């Protein structure tokens, strides 16, 4: 007889997915705003989009895709009882997240220094469509960055729990759901990248 309460893994995963659907609709709403304003100001969006740093966007895309691979591998590792490997893979994921945010810091610093930031005197003088583009850019990418921060913190907790053995082959709902959250962060970036860095 076991004294630990029974766990409902399917229920835990279902709950996580329901939460992820609300996240999809949250970012979907921001993409919808982008689309509606793009239809209204195509030329201004094109002019503003050319100011984006394609290099930063591409490198960060590769970093996030790689971090997502390691998160998915960590789930496979724990399923095969490879606890130590799972901890290393989660560490790699969190490290990639940190590099992503550091790149974001460099990118935003470069943009701020050119006078592109919400409410800046420069943006008060440009055509309205361009300032809308930058506002949407900072809101969407900023909210995504917040998700990277939360996901990184969550996966750090998960890695510690895997290391302690609280998360193991018989009960890894925490790891599975943490990885799902991280994949959502990757998924959202997959759409941010073309919309803000490439399309225009």
């Amino acid at each position, binding site marked *: 007889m076991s004294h630990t309460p029974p766990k409902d893994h399917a229920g835990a995963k279902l709950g996580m997915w329901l939460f992820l659907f609300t996240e999809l*609709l949250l970012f979907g709403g921001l993409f919808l705003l982008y689309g*509606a304003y793009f239809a*209204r100001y195509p030329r201004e969006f094109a002019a503003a989009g050319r100011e984006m740093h394609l290099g930063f966007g*591409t490198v960060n895309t590769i970093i996030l895709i790689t971090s997502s691979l390691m998160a998915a591998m960590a789930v496979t590792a724990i399923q095969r009882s490879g606890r130590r490997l799972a901890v290393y893979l989660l560490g790699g994921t969190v490290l990639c997240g940190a590099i992503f945010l550091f790149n974001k810091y460099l990118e935003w610093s470069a943009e701020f220094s050119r006078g592109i930031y919400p409410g800046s005197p420069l943006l008060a003088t440009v055509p309205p469509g361009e300032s809308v583009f930058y506002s949407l850019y900072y809101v969407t990418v900023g909210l995504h960055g917040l998700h990277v921060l939360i996901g990184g913190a969550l996966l750090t907790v998960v890695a510690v729990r895997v290391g302690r053995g609280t998360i193991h082959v018989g009960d890894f709902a925490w790891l599975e759901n943490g990885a799902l959250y991280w994949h959502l962060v990757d998924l959202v970036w997959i759409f941010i*990248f*073309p919309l803000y860095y490439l399309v225009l």
Partner: protein
Amino acid sequence: MSSERADNHIIGYGTLTAVWVALLVLTALTVWVSRHTPGIGHVWGSLAIAAAKGGLVIAFFMHMRYEGRLLRWLLFLALVTLVIFIGLTFFDVLYR
């Protein structure tokens, strides 16, 4: 005491790595398309490639390919909701 999970499906490292390679190739392709396709074509091209990448992430990294009917239908419902929102908004925005 811990019991093994019944719903376990393990995705091998090889499959995951293959998906990763595909994602990198699609990323290179989307950058190339944005630089070499004139006109409105690259907007739809970029979005189609992003949708393909998103599908790979959901199907393999997020295990959706191996989930049961409930989660698949819920995902479908969420995406249909999003499509209805976007479709109806553009129906208004484009034909005013």
